C-alpha cells in the first residue's frame, strides 16, 4: 500500500470528476442518455475505487456503513412515496400528474423524484455489497 503512489494520486485527481459525472448522468438523464440506475452505479463505483486504493476503513469515513444501509430502503421509500402521493391526491398509484400545477410539470417532477429514489437505492446497495464482501474476506 506504500508503493502505489501513482494510483493514489491518480485516483485522488479522478474522484471529483467521477462524482461530477455521476451527478451529470443523474440530472441530465432527462435530456441525454442516463438516469438513476447508471448514476447510482457510477457513484457507488467512486466509493468502491476509493476503498480499493485507500482501504475500506478510509471509504467508510466518507460513506459510513450505517449511511449506506439506510440508503438501501430509503430509495425504495422515495419511489413508493411518490406513487402514494399521487394516490392521496386523487389519482392512480404512480400517476404523477397531480404533483404540480399542471400535468406535464407534475410528471416531470415525478420522474425526477423517482429517478432520485433509484439513484439512492442503487448506489447504496452496490456500496453495501462491496463492504459486506470485503469484510468477510478479512
Amino acid at each position: 500500500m506504500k508503493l502505489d503512489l501513482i494510483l493514489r494520486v491518480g485516483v485522488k485527481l479522478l474522484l471529483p470528476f467521477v462524482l461530477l459525472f455521476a451527478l451529470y448522468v443523474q440530472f441530465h438523464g432527462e435530456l441525454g442518455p442516463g438516469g438513476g440506475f447508471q448514476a447510482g452505479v457510477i457513484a457507488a463505483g467512486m466509493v468502491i475505487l476509493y476503498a480499493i486504493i485507500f482501504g475500506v476503513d478510509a471509504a467508510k469515513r466518507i460513506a459510513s456503513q450505517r449511511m449506506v444501509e439506510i440508503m438501501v430502503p430509503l430509495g425504495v421509500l422515495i419511489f413508493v412515496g411518490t406513487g402514494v402521493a399521487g394516490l392521496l391526491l386523487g389519482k392512480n398509484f404512480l400517476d404523477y400528474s397531480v404533483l404540480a400545477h399542471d400535468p406535464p410539470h407534475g410528471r416531470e417532477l415525478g420522474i425526477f423524484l423517482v429517478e432520485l429514489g433509484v439513484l439512492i437505492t442503487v448506489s447504496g446497495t452496490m456500496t453495501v455489497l462491496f463492504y459486506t464482501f470485503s469484510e468477510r474476506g478479512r
Partner: protein
Amino acid sequence: MVLLTLLAAVTIGVVRTRSLFGVIALVSAYSFLMASVMIVLDAPDVAMTEAAVGAGVSTVLLLATLHLTGSMEYPRPRKAYLPLFVAAGTGAAIVWGTYDLPPFGTADAPIHKHVAPRYLEKSIQETMVPNVVTSVLADYRSYDTLGETTVIFTAGIGVLLLLKGRRRRQQDKSVEGSTT
C-alpha cells in the same frame, strides 16, 4: 461484425481458461464489447448501464468473491456430452425461432406499431422530458421500474442478512464458548 467475432473469441476464452482471475478479466472485456455493440445499435442508455454494471461493479464484486473462495477452477471430472447437447439444442431452437421475426431494422415491425409511436409523439407534450427512454422508464412504465428497484433492494438486504448476520452469530458463539 468485428465486435461479434471478438465476443465469440472472448466467450471461448472464458470457457477454456482455468484461472478464475483470467475468467473475470475476460468477462469484463465481454461486457465492454457488449457495451460497444449497444452503442452501434444506437442504445446509449443500455450501453452505459452495461459498461458501468457489467464491466465495472460486477467485476469488482466477482473479484471480492474470489477473495473469499479459491482462484483456481477444479478440473472437470468427465466429458460433458449431455450439457453440450442441451446447450446446442436450445441454441438451435432459438436460432430457428428468429426466422419468424421480421428482418432487423424494419420500420413496420409489430413492436414499432403498438405503443411506441404514441410515446415518441406525446412524450415531450405530456411529461416535458425530451429523452423518451427516461420518460418511458420512469413514467409510462414506472411499475416495472419500481419492481426493478425493489429487486435491487431485496438483493442488498439478502446479502446483508446472509453474510453479515452469520458473521455476527459466529462471533457470539465464540464469545459464549470462551465464557463457559
